[in-house]
């Protein structure tokens, strides 16, 4: 039989048996070639801008800003992956961001701060919870119309784009609402919204522990069912790369130092004596970036390790088969949109906190950046395929392009032209890759 011959390379007695070179290396380490391609593209963009900008792109300060700017759209992109995987689209996320941001700002300034007191640590929790619930309900409502009333997602969310933008205006009659709670503002980053050098190292240490424990658990799992193991050298290689990435990122955010006056203010506030030659106080990881990474981890877990995630992908591959297998496809679709709405609210919290206020235009066009991030990150518009990590990287690629062009002083119209063209080219390249892989 022909299949028997093509199977031999996959008989995992030794995963590299019979295949050498780059292919064998990739198979043994189980590195996703698409991911690798994206990281490569990102590095090209970074180095390119660094050279063009005369050495100002790859600086701790710029990279730190880049990470903060990526967070909001990145959070939404993780949800957009699941939406697109189920063969749907959500054009309303920018408007949901707008309306939930406005709701949170109004709820905080008019209700929670007066009710709970100016210094209360509960205000930010109440504000965030309100936003999340509103996002969940808005997304859930759209999901209901799509799944149970059978209106195509494109139309429902196109309507939602207008409805929720109008709703945002209506919540505060078009005014800009400044936030009152300082704790909530930490969600947006800034010098106070960062965790500093020590905590950044603690976060890094925890991450390293999880990575190592995860790798060991995977080996134990393979042993339990007597499946073939990844070769030790391959395991060590992927582990080393992950650890270098974690340590490197931590070193970068820690080498971004508070500017002189801010550092002095910080020192005074914390009763630290200012030594000769000035203070060296690091920003460390920004809170929104940690939130972004946390969301990414949770969403990856949902996509890969839960029933819900499995059903999302099964539906995307063949909706009819999923239904025949007994999956309640309507409920899963509704939940996907509800989750998307909630993530739009998380993004709203980040961007509102960063601006210290909610504005009427907030999140405008974010739906396009979010979809672009997911698609550049390898999510197939035909449904059924996509990864959370890819979308997160896609968001970083998009933001790198934009920040780089701002750094070069390019005009906004030209920026739009470049971003649009890059999106099309990226998807074209991906199409070629897919055809080759199939």
């Amino acid at each position: 039989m022909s299949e028997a011959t093509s199977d031999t390379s996959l008989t995992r007695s030794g995963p590299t048996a019979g295949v050498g070179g780059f292919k064998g290396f990739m198979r043994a380490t189980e590195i996703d070639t698409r991911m690798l391609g994206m990281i490569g593209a990102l590095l090209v963009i970074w180095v390119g801008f660094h050279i063009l900008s005369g050495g100002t792109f790859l600086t701790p300060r710029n990279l730190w800003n880049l990470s903060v700017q990526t967070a909001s759209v990145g959070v939404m992109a993780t949800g957009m992956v699941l939406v697109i995987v189920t063969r749907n689209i959500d054009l309303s996320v920018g408007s949901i961001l707008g309306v939930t941001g406005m709701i949170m700002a109004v709820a905080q300034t008019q209700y929670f701060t007066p009710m709970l007191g100016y210094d209360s640590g509960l205000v930010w929790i109440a504000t965030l919870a309100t936003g999340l619930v509103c996002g969940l309900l808005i997304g859930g409502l759209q999901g209901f119309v799509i799944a149970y009333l059978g209106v195509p997602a494109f139309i429902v969310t196109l309507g939602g784009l207008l409805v929720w933008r109008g709703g945002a205006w209506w919540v505060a009659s078009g005014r800009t609402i400044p936030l009152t709670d300082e704790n909530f503002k930490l969600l947006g980053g800034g010098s106070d919204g960062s965790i500093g050098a020590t905590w950044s190292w603690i976060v890094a240490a925890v991450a390293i522990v999880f990575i190592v424990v995860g790798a060991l658990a995977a080996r134990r799992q393979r042993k339990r069912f007597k499946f073939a193991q990844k070769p030790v050298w391959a395991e060590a290689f992927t582990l080393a790369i992950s650890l270098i990435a974690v340590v490197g990122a931590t070193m970068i955010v820690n080498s971004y130092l508070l500017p002189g006056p801010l550092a002095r203010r910080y020192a005074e506030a914390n009763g630290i004596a200012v030594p000769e030659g000035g203070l060296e106080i690091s920003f460390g990881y920004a809170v929104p970036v940690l939130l972004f990474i946390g969301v990414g981890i949770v969403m990856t877990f949902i996509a890969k390790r839960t029933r819900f995630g499995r059903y999302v992908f099964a539906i995307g591959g063949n909706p009819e088969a999923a239904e025949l297998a007994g999956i309640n496809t309507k409920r899963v679709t509704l939940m996907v949109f509800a989750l998307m709405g909630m993530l739009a609210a998380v993004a709203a919290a980040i961007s509102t906190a960063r601006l210290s206020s909610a504005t009427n235009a907030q999140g405008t066009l974010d739906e396009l950046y979010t979809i672009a991030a997911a698609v550049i990150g390898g999510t197939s518009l035909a449904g059924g395929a996509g990864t959370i990590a890819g979308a997160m990287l896609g968001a970083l690629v998009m933001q790198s392009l934009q920040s780089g062009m701002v750094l070069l002083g390019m005009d906004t119209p030209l920026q739009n032209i470049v971003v649009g063209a890059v999106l099309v080219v990226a998807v074209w390249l991906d199409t070629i890759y897919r055809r080759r892989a199939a």
Partner: protein
Amino acid sequence: MSATMEDIRDHGRGHHHDTVDRSGTPLVDMRDISIAFGGIHAVDHASIDLYSGEVVALLGHNGAGKSTLIKILSGAYKRDSGEIFVRGEKASIGNPRDAKAYGIETIYQTLALADNVDAAANLFLGREIMTPWGTLDDGAMEAEARKVMGRLNPNFRRFKEPVKALSGGQRQSVAIARAILFNAKILIMDEPTAALGPQETAQVADLIKELKKEDIGIFLISHDIHDVFDLSDRVVVMKNGQVVGSARTEDVTKDEVLGMIILGKCPPGATPGPGAMKE
């Protein structure tokens, strides 16, 4: 083709002896089922029953309504009229989940696989094995998948790949494995060997005999009488959505059944249905 195909060439009566006990209530009894798509009466007042340990072959031309009839039993379609009884009790089957709850498992003609997930994920789709922490236990599912696939298609190795990368026969094996994995009481097999090679086809025939011994009732659907004559205890023939007639396989010859399929002519050994040709 295979040896099994060769010994079907004699056009004699079905040579295995009917040992099915049909004195009690049937396992499945579909009565007077109708469904129309637009103007087409895909199934038109069809009645069909099935006993424990029995293989009922459902035969008919392309477009006769076989798949549509059994999709009503499997919950894929909602009937316009008619009733379904399972073990004598009226069953309400509104969706595939309901059918599975009655122990009805189906191998669809189209296979109905989720193309972008692997074999194990397909076998357990909708009934995943979970860890104590409520997460998917992919290791356990793959181990089970290896066991059951080893029984059906021992050459199969491609457990890590999405099923869309598999050959037609491999996909069919996955669909069969999924149907027998969960202790079905009633098994619907819609052209289960259409894409299989001779070796795998023989394996499916053995499997059907084994399942029969476990008192499972099987609807075996085909448009080709040669595929099913040896395996079935009874044949039911459909034409234009109607039942032409039914007969114990040992009471009719292949030529007579062919006459039922092609002309709608009911032989003396068969019980005529509403679709039988009027003399």
